[in-house]
């Protein structure tokens, strides 16, 4: 029997191959550990004509617990400047935390949420605590202490 998370990811992948929402495109899903998507905000927005690379990392607790999701930041990619996106690519979104995740959410549902989070942005500015957060944050956003990521939610 295949592991529950690969069974579920296989089904999600079949749907993704059948078609993704506009502005969301699969870049790589060669393994069940890591998937990459490009996210583009369609229409008029602060992020017009920009493409961002979104990384999903899964462990065998998916989909009971959330995947680790972040924007890729490297020589060729940057994270969008947004009040809920740290400059290291970590995203502060309730659906990605213990409080807001539910197994009825899928990878594409997460992509859509992040896309609309960007689309609805009124002012391009980093989280208020970006300078405090980024040097202390662990590499994997799922390992972040709850208290470390609390202020952008209040901001």
């Amino acid at each position, binding site marked *: 029997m295949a592991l*529950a998370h690969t*069974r579920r990811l296989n089904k999600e992948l079949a749907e993704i191959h059948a078609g993704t929402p506009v502005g969301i495109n699969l870049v790589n899903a060669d393994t069940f550990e890591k998937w990459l998507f490009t996210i583009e905000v369609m229409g008029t927005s602060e992020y017009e004509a920009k493409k961002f690379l979104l990384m999903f990392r899964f462990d065998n607790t998916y989909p*009971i617990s959330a995947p680790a999701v972040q924007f890729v930041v490297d020589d060729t990619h940057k994270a969008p400047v947004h009040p809920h996106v740290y400059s290291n690519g970590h995203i502060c979104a309730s659906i990605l935390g213990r409080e807001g995740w539910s197994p*009825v959410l*899928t990878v594409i549902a997460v992509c859509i949420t992040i896309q609309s989070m960007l689309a609805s942005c009124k002012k391009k500015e980093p989280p208020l605590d970006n300078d405090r957060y980024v040097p*202390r944050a662990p590499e994997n956003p799922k390992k972040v*202490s709850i*208290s470390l990521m609390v202020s952008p939610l209040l901001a």
Partner: protein
Amino acid sequence: MQLPFEPPASGPGTSSEPANASRPPIVVNENTDISQLSQAQLYDLNQNLLDDAVPDQPLIGPLTSMSTLRAEYKEGSRSFVDQIDYLISQGYVSIRRARGDGDCFYRSLAFGFIENLLNSPQTDVAVAIATSLLESTVPMLEEAGFQELVFEDFYEVLLSLIQQIDTPEPGGTTLTSEILLEAFQSPEVSNSVVVYLRLVASAQIRNNPKEYAPFLFHPEIGEPMDTREFCEHFVEAVGKEADHVQMTALTRALKMSVNVAYLDGRSHTGKVDFVEFRDPDSQLENNPPITLLYRPGHYDILDERTAEAL
């Protein structure tokens, strides 16, 4: 629908569980400058929060004597001890504990449900009824707007456990109490069942908004909530405790009979109030009630059998 008890305060620190000697966590309050904590301390802090939320105990434990629970309260509240004695006098001599992870109601209920089927005098009939009941939840979930893709794996886990009562697993045996306990202690099986019951409860609420909407309140703030928002945050989300609304919805959807004994330490006489959840259509003789023990913020299973009798 009247709440027969005050809504439990949720969150760590408000549980009525007896105080155990655990290592002191790093104290974080409004005076703490988190930027002064080291990377290691932050990691510890996070781990402590996770550990608090999920103590180191099995997801579902073996049947143990109520006297062990009584012993834990002996040094503490007299009224709790009196209520435990009352339950023992009513024949509830054993308790099966669920981990205090916010899923305890769903997990306890699911365990009790399958165990009842397993102990049924006519398992073939009981399994057939339970199977058709479970099958009827699939269109219910679809009506509520859930994609088959997101629930079918959880559904299959629950269905195959029920079917294993009469049909041996390929290359295995039929379900026994030991196998059931083992399954409920394995996170993959146990959490899948919990998630499925959460989705059934959610679908029941979403599909009958007129019936449930007046009772949907934010558990912490007490403000009325929109059906969808309530279901997403307080029914479907793993680790969120069930309250009266979720319990009513789930027991109705699965036509279960459930008795909940409220051990709240508030009774002056030591008597324990039982709240009954009944499906009007089902007959009790075919559907013996599952009895749960509620302590503020937590559910376990009560049993009239002793561990030795199993």
